[in-house]
């Protein structure tokens, strides 16, 4: 009967966490620290418009999302709520790694800040994009979105079944034109392009980013996780420093699976999951355990109620 902390991925356009920041001094202290580590102002981390250049924008966005997730963790820790199991997809997996003690907070934020120096792709490279695909709940994923083998389209994520179990939501990354063509070829509603996401994450198209970050990640001082930490790249619990380094290295180009994350967390005993920040929307997906979204001060009460009602054993081990 374990409490799991689950962290989403991606960099959204909505600002989350203002109320939490204002309500909790421990969160404001963290943002001050993050500002020192990253060179961004607290306002930039918290709510200001992200910079325009693509990689710079992505870097600042990841810092914003990570600061929020860790800040919420710190607020919950003040209430005596610590995770027994940690998991996340993409950026969230790195945040989870940090809380598992595999990498320090400073090192994580400095890595995210370093990513802003990633060389932009040449202007004549095809425009990239992301889309969500809605597939039948059962069956082969590759065939489900009917994009397999299409040039410029990659299956980059599996978010699993919808809340009613009727459908399955996949993420497609690729060249924008190829995604648009796929969208047009399929029945309406099958593929939904995400116009504000111009980076083909978790696909081979992010190879240049992976190559740029590889030396930096190779030099980072990873340690073995002190808490169960699950991977988003395969169904696995990471147990060594090298496991975590490998996750950081492959994350840009390899597909992610929220299904694998949640199933592994379930196997690790999770019976209640806290979804940190606004990174995974409510009510869309089916999880193998109850979840409570934590992004506003009033959610703390819901967390405490759920911990009591689900009879959770609170972990004696404190996350980092």
């Amino acid at each position, binding site marked *: 009967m374990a409490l799991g902390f689950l962290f*989403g*991925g*991606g960099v*959204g356009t*909505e600002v989350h966490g203002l109320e939490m920041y204002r309500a909790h001094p421990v969160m404001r202290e963290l943002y001050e620290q993050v500002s020192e580590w990253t060179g961004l102002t607290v306002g930039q981390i918290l709510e200001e418009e992200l910079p325009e250049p693509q990689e710079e924008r992505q870097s600042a966005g990841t810092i914003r999302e990570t600061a929020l997730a860790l800040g919420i963790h710190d607020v919950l820790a003040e*209430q*005596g709520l610590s995770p027994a199991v940690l998991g996340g997809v*993409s950026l969230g997996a790195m945040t989870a790694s940090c809380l598992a003690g595999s990498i320090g907070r400073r090192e994580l934020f400095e890595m995210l800040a370093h990513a802003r120096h990633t060389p932009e792709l040449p202007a004549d490279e095809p425009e990239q994009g*992301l889309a*969500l695909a809605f597939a039948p709940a059962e069956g082969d994923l590759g065939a489900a979105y009917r994009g397999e083998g299409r040039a410029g389209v990659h299956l980059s*994520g599996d*978010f699993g079944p*919808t*809340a*009613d*179990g*009727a459908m399955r*939501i996949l*993420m497609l990354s690729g060249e924008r034109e190829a995604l648009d063509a796929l969208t047009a070829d399929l029945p309406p509603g099958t593929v*939904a392009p*995400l116009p*504000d*996401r111009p980076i083909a*994450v978790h696909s081979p198209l992010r190879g240049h980013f992976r190559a740029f970050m590889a030396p930096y990640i190779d030099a980072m001082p990873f340690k073995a996780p002190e808490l169960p930490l699950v991977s988003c790249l395969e169904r696995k619990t990471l147990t060594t420093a090298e496991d975590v380094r490998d996750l950081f290295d492959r994350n840009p180009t390899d597909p992610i699976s929220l299904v694998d994350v949640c199933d592994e967390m379930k196997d690790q005993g999770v*019976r209640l999951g806290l979804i940190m920040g*606004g*990174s*995974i*929307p*409510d*009510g*869309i*997906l*089916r999880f193998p*355990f*109850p979840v*409570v*979204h934590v*992004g*506003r001060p*009033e*959610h703390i*009460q*819901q967390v*405490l*109620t*759920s*911990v*009591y*009602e*689900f*009879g959770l054993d*609170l972990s004696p081990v404190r996350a980092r």
Partner: protein
Amino acid sequence: MSAPPAALSPTERGTECDALIDDWLGTDLDAWTRKVVARHFHPETGSPYWLRRAAGLGFDARDITRYDQLTAFGPFPVDILRSQDPADLVPLDVPRPLTGRVWDTGGTTGAPCRLFYTPAMLLHRGAWRRWSFVTEGFTQGRTWLQATPTGPHLIGNGMWEVSDLYAGQVYGVDMDPRWVKRLIRAGRLADATEYTTHLLEQVTDVLIHGRIDYLNTTPALFLALVRRHPELVAPLRGVRLSGTQLSPDMYRDFMAAMDDGICGRSYGNTFGNAAGLPVEQNAELMPYVPNYPQVTMNVVRKEDWSTTVEYGTVGQVRLTVLHEDLFLPNILERDQALRYDTGSAWPSDGVANVTPLQTTSSAPEGLY
């Protein structure tokens, strides 16, 4: 315990309840809506609360002809039920002075809301509860332990429902949900757990003698019992659950903990209730149907309470109470659920997988 005045045998009660439910399930919801609205807005014999509000509504409530037009009333301001005389919600057609019980809501967010239940309303609730007993496989004439809130909490009237409507013998253990909520609000989870232990001691003191067939309690307390005293759970013939969150894992664990027991469920509160239907998809889908037609539930968009979501989609639970003696349109519950398609099996929508309302974004684009 409160009870309707007539002293009928359990068999006669059963026949009466069956007939009532047959009638209710055959009721046209629009016709029922017209009847209830007309009663509450009757100039001489309506309910004082609604007659006071009538002039400020901006429309003549008696012009309403369909259930879906009840959105014109807007969300019901439940806060007024914390201070309003409960009698003012009851039509003057019910003879004054009113005699009977005032029931409280849980008081999760402060002072409780209070409602007067006429005998007909209590019988309505009891008849549906009895219907659940029958359809879920509980048998008459058994011995029950009810470990739930009692006192001002309507769930406690279940002791009467079991004994008088289902020929049961009922033991009781009282639970104070407001104390638990107060402890949780203060972050005193260890003290809340200690209170659970205090309740479990009383529960086990009854169960240990082996006389109890069925246990009626909350999922949270039953979970604690399963963990700490599995040997007392195994021989139970069944458990009936309501009042706190129930996850698919819990349901499956509960079924596994009983050698050959059944697990009944209901969802609701002092405003209105819904009966559990059999679980689907290995308990991943846990549906409920409201106590029609006096209670109906819609699942609506969180950002637009007047719009119902698609089947299979999650939204906020909107409850409408259409008792002849109590009219509460559009109560926005602090719960969310899947909108459940009952098809031809039920005259209204159902709800499934009920959880506390989450006030976060639910836009799919936020997935990444």
